[in-house]
Structure formats: C-alpha cells, structure tokens
C-alpha cells in the first residue's frame, strides 16, 4: 500500500467523505424507524394498562372477590362466581390438555422426522389456527348437545383443545433445543431411546415446557368465545363440573354489554384482574426461562 492510497483510505472514515455521510444518515434514519416500530408495539399495552387502572381500580374492593353478581339493576355485588369458575375450568382444562400436549410434542420431537410426523405437525398447526369460537361450537355439538346441559366440564374441554396445539409445538421445540451431546451421553451409557427421552431430554427441556405451559395457560384464561356455548356462565357460585359455570371473560362480556353502571365498573375491574394475572403468569414464565439459561451449557 502506497502512502497515497493509505491516506485516501483513512479519508474514507472521516466526515469529509460523502459516502460516509450518506451511510451515517441512513443509519440514523433506520434507527429512528426501528425505535418508532418498537414504540408502536409497546404503546398499546401501556394504554391498555392505563385505561384498566383508571377505570377498573376504583371498583376493586373486597366485595368484588367475595360476593356473587348482583341481580340486574340492584347495584353492588361482586364476581366471585366468575373468579372461582375461571380457576376451576382453566385448571381442569390445563390438567386435561397438558399430558396430551406434552405427549404429542414428545412424539413430534422424537418420532416426527418422517411423513407421519410432518402430517401431524401440520394438523397441530391447523388446530392452533382454528378460531376459538369454532372450538366452542365443536364442543357444544360434541358434549353439550348430547348431555342436554351446559357444563363446566365442556368448557374445560374447549379450553384444553385450545391449549393442546400451543403447548405441543412448544414442547417439541424445547425438546429439539436440548443439546445433542446430552442424548449422546445417555446413549453412550447404554440407555435405550425411550429412557434417554424420559430421563434426560424431557427433564432438560422441562423449564422451557413449563414456560410454554404458563403462556398457554395465560392464553386460555382470557378466552370467552369457547366458553359461551359450553360453560355458558352462571351468576351464582357453582363448583359443580356438570352444571353451567361462570368465568371471568364471560362475566366481562355480560357486564360490559349490560346497561348498568356498576356492571361496567366491575367489567373494568375484572379486566384489570385478568390482565394482571396474565402479566404475573408471564413474569413467572420469564423467571423459569431465566433459570433454564443457567442450566444450559
């Protein structure tokens, strides 16, 4: 390199060079665009939280949690029936869906490298894309009509059907993330395939699967559509799995569309409770992911 073009190449990196100035400008513009996009994503969440707190916080009191919905136009009352109903149906739906989803995910990860796996994976994705109201209708035809009865059980089944494809794919992905070296270590110790999966791969993937479970649970906790034709809703407290049962999203829908001021306020309050619950579960999921990072090499 001659001194001459060495000087020229140094010039390239100074503000005097027009090419450099243009690059700098593009860089600034791109950075601004990306900041704007990031902002556009966060602003709705911030606004939602703002409105929920502004409109809902005032209606949060002990009565909300301890009393059942008041009769139309009576004022007062609470949403205990909805809180209890949501806890029962989300819990039962998770309990039904989780083993199926994890089993399906394990199958996809371990035996899904073939045609059958490809087909199953596609079907799971299709199921995940089916509108939740359609799932509700399906369960209505499957369980509610034959039983001639709206039931919490049917609601839980509908929630499970929504949970299964989400959790199955997360399980598969988490299993595939387990380093191959760990499987090899197990094989090299003489463990057969199924034992390697059960004792090594699944436990190693478990924090990730639990995170997925949290996210799926948060998702079904907020679903109203699949419960409309299944659990129906109930203004009285019920813990009977074979009767209509209330749920927070249903109660929000009924109260928000009703004509009474105290209902509207309680709908805001329930929304706030639900969003805080989902936020909490998501944070929990994050801490599990955090612990997973230390476990991974």
């Amino acid at each position, binding site marked *: 390199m001659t001194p001459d073009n060495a000087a020229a190449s140094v010039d390239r990196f100074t503000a005097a060079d027009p090419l450099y100035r243009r690059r700098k400008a593009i860089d600034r513009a791109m950075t601004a665009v990306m900041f704007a996009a990031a902002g556009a994503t966060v602003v709705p969440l911030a606004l939602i939280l703002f409105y929920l707190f502004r409109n809902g916080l005032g209606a949060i009191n002990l009565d909300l949690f301890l009393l059942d919905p008041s009769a139309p136009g009576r004022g007062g009352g609470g949403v205990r029936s909805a809180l209890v109903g949501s806890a029962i149906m989300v819990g039962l739906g998770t309990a039904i869906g989780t083993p199926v989803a994890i089993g399906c995910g394990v199958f996809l990860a371990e035996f899904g*490298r073939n045609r059958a796996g490809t087909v199953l994976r596609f079907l799971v994705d299709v199921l995940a894309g089916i509108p939740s109201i359609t799932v509700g209708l399906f369960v209505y035809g499957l369980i509610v009509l034959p039983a001639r009865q709206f039931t919490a059980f049917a609601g839980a089944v509908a929630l499970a059907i929504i949970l299964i494809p989400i959790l199955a794919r997360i399980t598969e992905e988490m299993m595939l993330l387990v*380093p191959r*070296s*760990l*499987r*090899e*270590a*197990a*094989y*090299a*110790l*003489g*463990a*057969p395939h199924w*034992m390697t999966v059960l*004792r*090594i791969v699944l*436990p*190693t993937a*478990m924090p990730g699967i639990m995170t997925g479970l949290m996210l799926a649970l948060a998702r079904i906790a907020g679903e109203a559509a699949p419960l409309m034709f299944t659990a129906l809703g109930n203004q009285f407290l019920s813990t009977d799995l074979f009767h209509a049962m209330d749920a927070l999203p249903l109660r929000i829908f009924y109260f928000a569309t009703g004509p009474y001021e105290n209902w509207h306020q309680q709908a805001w309050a329930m929304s706030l409770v639900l969003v805080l619950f989902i936020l909490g579960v998501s944070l929990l999921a994050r801490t599990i992911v955090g612990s997973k990072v*230390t*476990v*991974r*090499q």
Partner: protein
Amino acid sequence: MERPELIVQEPIVQAPAAPEPQRRDFFQVGTASGRVERAERRVSVAVEDVSAWYGSKLAVAGVSFEVLAHSVTALIGPSGCGKSTVLRCINRMHEINVGARVEGTVRLEGADVYGPNVDATRVRQRVGMVFQKPNPFPTMSIAENVAAGLRFMKIGTKSEERDRVEEALRAAALWDEVKDDLNKSGMALSGGQQQRLCIARTIAVEPEVVLMDEPCSALDPVATLKIEDLMAELAQRYTIVIVTHNLQQAARVADYTGFILLEQSDSAGHLIEYSPTSDLFTHPRDKRTEDFITGRFG
C-alpha cells in the same frame, strides 16, 4: 507379575460359537510405562475392515486394527479424516446418526458387536465413551450424574450406588474436590472437573473399554495434564482408545498409535499406519505419517 483384576463379564451374545479371544504377542513394547508388556497381551477390541457411511458419503474405509487389553491406543490424523467416526463404530454410536451405516466387523473380546441379536445398548454398557465437550446432565447433581448409568440399568441398591459413585469419583481423581458438594449441580464445576465427572460417569458402570474423543480439546493445559495422568491410571483397569489432534498427547499417553488420513482416491479416511507409539513417532513406515508428525501438513 501384577496383573490388573479383570471384571468378569457375561458375553454379549449367548451365541453358541463365540470365537475365543485372540492372543498374540506384539513385537514391541509400547511407551515408557511398559504397561502393555506387563499386562496380559490380549486383544480386547478388534476392528476388522470397517467402513462407515453417512448416508451415501463414505467417511472411513477398510480400517483394521487391534487394541490390546489395558493399553492406551491413540488415533491421530488431520481434522475431518474420520477419527471420531472410527471410534464411534466401536461402541455402535455411529448408527445413531440418521442414515449412517457400518460395514465390517468389530470384535469385543472376540464377539462381533454387529452380530445378529446383539443389543447396541449392551455394547455401549461395555464400551463407554467420553466426548470432546464435557457433557454432564444439567438436571442432575454430581452424584446423580455419576450414578446415571447405574440407574439406567437399574443396578444396585442405594448404598451400593453410593459406594460406586465414590469409587468412580476417586478413580476419576475428582473425589477430593467434590466430596462435600455431591448434591450440587455438575454444571457448577470447571471444564476440567466436568470432564473428569464425565469420566467418572463412564467408569461407574464398569465398562471394559473406554473411548475418548479428544477429551482434552476443550480444556486448559493444567486440566489436560490431569486427564493425561488419569489415563495411565485408568489403563490399569480399562482398555482405552483415545482420539486426539495433539501429537504430543498421543506420544505421552499412548502405547499404540494409529494414523488416519483422508485419501484422495475415495475421499474417505484410511488407517495409514498402526504401530507402537514409539515406533510411529521415531521410525514411521509411511512417508505420509512422517509428513504428518513432522508437521508438514494437517
């Protein structure tokens, strides 16, 4: 004559005509340790005309060599020549790759590990393996890691298991460092300690042969030295085959050394030369071996 105690093993197959283990005298003593000379000159592993494929790609071709019991045998060669592949053919780890295939024969104490009715998992219990990167099970404590193989096989009671864990950790020269932390995660250990943990895990199931695939390549020199010292110890009880890219390491630890090289004709790895280590390094018979050990390529 002190002779290491042999672990009595049931044969892999209850085949009627398992051939007698071959015995043969080698013309020369291995390294300075003279270990092989003192030990029984019994062929532990015989690799006979082994070729291995990944899908349609031939990776190694026509490899044959014999490993004497209680010797340390090193496989050297440029990277990508098929050292790991050869090693993984011995304990049938090659076949876990999708589409992988092996031809030829590998005998363990005379019995063909690729024979009909031979269970690959049983072969792997008798031929353990230590990998390039330390890979303790992250969900298990140190003790559980060492006991993992025993639990896979459902061997022993809790107290027997504790004894075996301690014994294996002592044999892997790790006991003193971890004896107060047995319930801590293995991931908290240093790289060298993790690798010794993996060695302990491997020998806890009392294999006959221990395969090591570049066990020190991820370690610092001090940790490397520890593992090299350990190899001489372990050879008292186990037969060791080690892949290494480090020629000095092969010269230091191995009684026998094989040199593998990619041949242009079929772009597959071939065993160019297999000799007592001192011979291979001082009087290589093949020009290509000489080029390699003098650093002219690879």
